[in-house]
């Protein structure tokens, strides 16, 4: 079997007495959506930070595209092609929607240190940015101020920024949160296609979306992965039902 | 340099450090509890010195002067907190910088208007003047020794206050979680005023004690304020322990640098060059110390790790 695009091996992380990650291992293979679910406080966000950069595990390794990236920071992992979306939107709220996507395109171009030509007149960047906006359905909002977007539109914009980077893998932290039913159905269809461009590690609370999309699911409880498997396996898993689905439903 | 001279410089450094601590403690408390950067803290130092000089001139009592300095600075602190500072807690640091810069202008010019541009003098009382002989045969001015004693006592008191009292518990809670202390039913607005007044009183005391060594004049507060910033950067923002360690470190480095560097350069340079290079370099020494701390530990010696 080919090496997975992204893999996490035996990661541990604690904050004082709190163990946020305990021997966590999971991987992301070509063409798949791997969903990460778990109750609040299970350590999902901590795990995402260790995968995307920004938080060093106490032990264990993170590999991306066949390379040990554990010691690399967020910027280096992004430059290698890790596209991330945030749970709480991290967008330049004072800027226009277009400027936010242009930023992604600019980062991907690797040449942000250009000082004199207006960025909005850079055809290549602009095309990348506009294509990404069109794909998530935000073309009409391009010139709006980002702070004027609805909560759901901000989630779409998060995804659009990640798209501009043409990443080799996506790490999405609750992209459905705050979307209405139709919004999350549309995003579900979109992610369903997107997995063929690059695999997606999807942290999500919306169980309908998870069961509709995921090739595999990992369940994180109190910092440990208690099960990994297909949708049917996870639905049937007794420990999962007890620890997680039982609480949730 | 002889042992006696070195011991004297060490004590001078300690005395300088202890005074810096009195100023830095208030700054770091106010930042730790309220998240406010207060440039006008130096003005409170100045107010303490002027109040002391005025009361000493009127009453002839040094003790009364020192008490007046504490009272005046605390009162000014309360006034400023209620009228201006309170509106700044929720603002960004830029607004805090500007508003407190404006306060400096108002305080400085106001003081100049009241007292004129000429420096005032605060005399050391007879019972504290003259040298005492310390063990080891060191002759040292009693007044400076008293400052060291008072400073260390205040530091001890402050640690006890924070560790043992109800107010201390509230201050510590305020540093870690502002919403929690509101939930505990603490009157936050009163707590903030008290903390601000406490910081102001300490700065006022420092102003009065220093006023007897230097002259009392408008603008005396800001150099101390900036040194207190250096202290806080070295010690770590919000940490009283860091403020104490930083103060002593800065006090000793500055004093010893000024005393020793010119001589040190004199070992391999012309005396005139050694004096000028040595004194120029020693004036920069604490900032170099700060830069080194920044490189090694950007959050300061006792600051929370990022």
């Amino acid at each position, binding site marked *: 079997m080919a090496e997975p695009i992204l893999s996490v091996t035996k990661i541990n992380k604690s904050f004082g007495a709190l163990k946020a990650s305990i021997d966590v291992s999971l991987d992301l293979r070509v063409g798949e959506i791997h969903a990460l679910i778990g109750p609040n406080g299970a350590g999902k966000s901590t795990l995402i930070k260790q995968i995307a950069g920004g938080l060093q595990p106490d032990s264990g390794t993170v590999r991306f595209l066949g390379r040990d990236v554990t010691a690399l920071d967020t910027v280096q992992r992004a430059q290698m092609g890790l596209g991330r979306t945030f749970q709480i939107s991290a967008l330049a709220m004072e800027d226009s929607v277009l400027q936010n996507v242009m930023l992604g395109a600019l980062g991907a171009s690797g040449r942000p240190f250009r000082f004199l030509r207006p960025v909005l007149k850079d055809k290549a960047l602009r095309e990348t940015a506009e294509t990404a906006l069109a794909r998530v359905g935000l073309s009409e909002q391009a010139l709006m101020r980002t702070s004027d977007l609805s909560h759901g539109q901000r989630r779409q914009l998060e995804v659009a920024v990640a798209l501009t980077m043409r990443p080799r893998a996506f790490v999405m932290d609750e992209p459905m949160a705050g979307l209405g039913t139709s919004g999350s159905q549309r995003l579900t269809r979109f992610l369903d296609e997107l997995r063929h461009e690059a695999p997606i590690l999807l942290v999500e609370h919306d169980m309908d979306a998870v069961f509709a999309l995921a090739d595999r699911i990992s369940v994180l409880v109190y910092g440990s992965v208690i099960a990994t498997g297909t949708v049917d396996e996870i639905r049937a898993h007794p420990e999962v039902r007890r620890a997680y689905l039982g609480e949730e439903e | 340099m002889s042992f006696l001279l070195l011991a004297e410089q060490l004590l001078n450094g300690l005395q300088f450090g202890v005074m810096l601590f009195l100023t830095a403690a208030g700054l770091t408390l106010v930042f730790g509890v309220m998240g406010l950067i207060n440039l006008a803290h130096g003005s409170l130092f100045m107010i303490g010195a002027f109040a002391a000089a005025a009361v000493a001139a009127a009453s002839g009592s040094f003790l009364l002067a020192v008490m007046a300095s504490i009272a005046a600075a605390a009162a000014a602190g309360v006034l400023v907190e209620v009228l201006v500072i309170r509106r700044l807690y929720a603002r960004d640091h*830029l607004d805090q910088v500007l508003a407190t810069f404006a306060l400096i202008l108002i305080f400085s010019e106001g003081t100049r208007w009241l007292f004129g541009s000429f420096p005032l003098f605060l005399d050391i009382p007879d019972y504290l003047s003259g040298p005492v002989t310390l063990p080891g045969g060191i002759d040292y001015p009693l007044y400076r020794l008293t400052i060291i004693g008072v400073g260390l006592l205040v530091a001890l008191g402050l640690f006890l206050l924070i560790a043992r009292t109800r107010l201390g518990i509230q201050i510590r809670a305020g540093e870690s979680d502002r919403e929690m202390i509101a939930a505990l039913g603490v009157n936050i607005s009163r707590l903030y005023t008290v903390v601000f007044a406490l910081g102001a009183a300490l700065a006022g005391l420092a102003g009065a004690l220093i006023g007897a060594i230097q002259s009392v004049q408008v603008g005396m507060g800001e150099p101390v304020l900036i040194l207190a910033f250096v202290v806080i950067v070295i010690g770590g923002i919000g940490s009283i322990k860091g403020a104490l360690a930083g103060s002593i470190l800065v006090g000793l480095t500055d004093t010893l640098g000024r005393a020793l560097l010119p001589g040190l350069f004199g070992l391999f340079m012309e005396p005139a060059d050694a004096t000028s290079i040595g004194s120029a370099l020693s004036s920069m020494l604490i900032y170099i110390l700060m830069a080194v701390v920044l490189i090694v530990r950007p959050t300061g010696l006792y600051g929370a790790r990022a």
Partner: protein
Amino acid sequence: MTRETLFNAVLGLGLFAFPLWAWWAEEPFMITLSTRVVILALAGVGLNLALGLGGLVSLGHAAFFGIGGYAMGILASHAQSYTPLMEFPFVIEGTKSMPVIWLVAVVASALAALVIGALSLRTSGVYFIMITLAFGQMLFYFAISWPAYGGEDGLSIYVRNSFPGLNTLDPIQFFLICYAILGAVLLLSARLAASPFGLALNAARQTSERVETVGIRPYRLRLTVFVISGMITGLAGALFADLNRFVSPSMLSWQTSGEIMVFVILGGVARLFGPVAGALLFILLEHVLGGLSEYWHIYLGLLLLGVVLFARGGVIGTLAGQGGKHG
């Protein structure tokens, strides 16, 4: 044309027309006053790049202002005493030529900003404010205790430096030089804000995390703008020293840093012409209030307090409404 653009145009033209009128009316003092406004505005435009676009609250910009001033003072004093600046390992002569002085001022400020910025930007927020203030103070004390160039007393230059083809001793010609530089720097600053670099920097001010996630290092963006900002303020310092034919440690003092920041705030943070409006207002106040009372700084303080507490956005923000900041 937005109201802000209109305001900027009126401001720019007014600042040009007034000294021309003063020249015609033979009021050289008014020309000098206008030149002061232009130079201080230039210093503010420098800070505004770091502060407005980069979100870097630097309270140490007097360092660059002073370095620019001393670049002029040192070079010109050596030229006027016919002694070389240094003889080993190679000879450097002083100079009275403005363009050369400007170049030295800009390069020296850039180097200082690189070192100060590289250290200060390891931190953020309040630390950054305190550290920039402290480094400014370090240079201030250095200038005071270094006896070679006047120490506390500063350095005087007998004759204003020269610019090829112009008579710089004529106030209106010197004004025009300064005005042209301000215009060029404003243009540069507008282009910078609209450039790819400006986009990334402006985003880094709002959300550092996002910028990292798209593979750009906020630290490098900030250090770059800090250096550019220092260069511009340094150039302003050289011109200011030339205007007064005098440089002293007071150019390096924390009050100077505070005042440069006040220009930016009075005018409006992140507004292209904010520092111009701010410097103009500052000089007007100094002139008008200073004539009324010796203690005019009290009124300045009250006004500043009022702007911070009640009229955020400064003069331009109040007149032109919110929105439309550059970037």
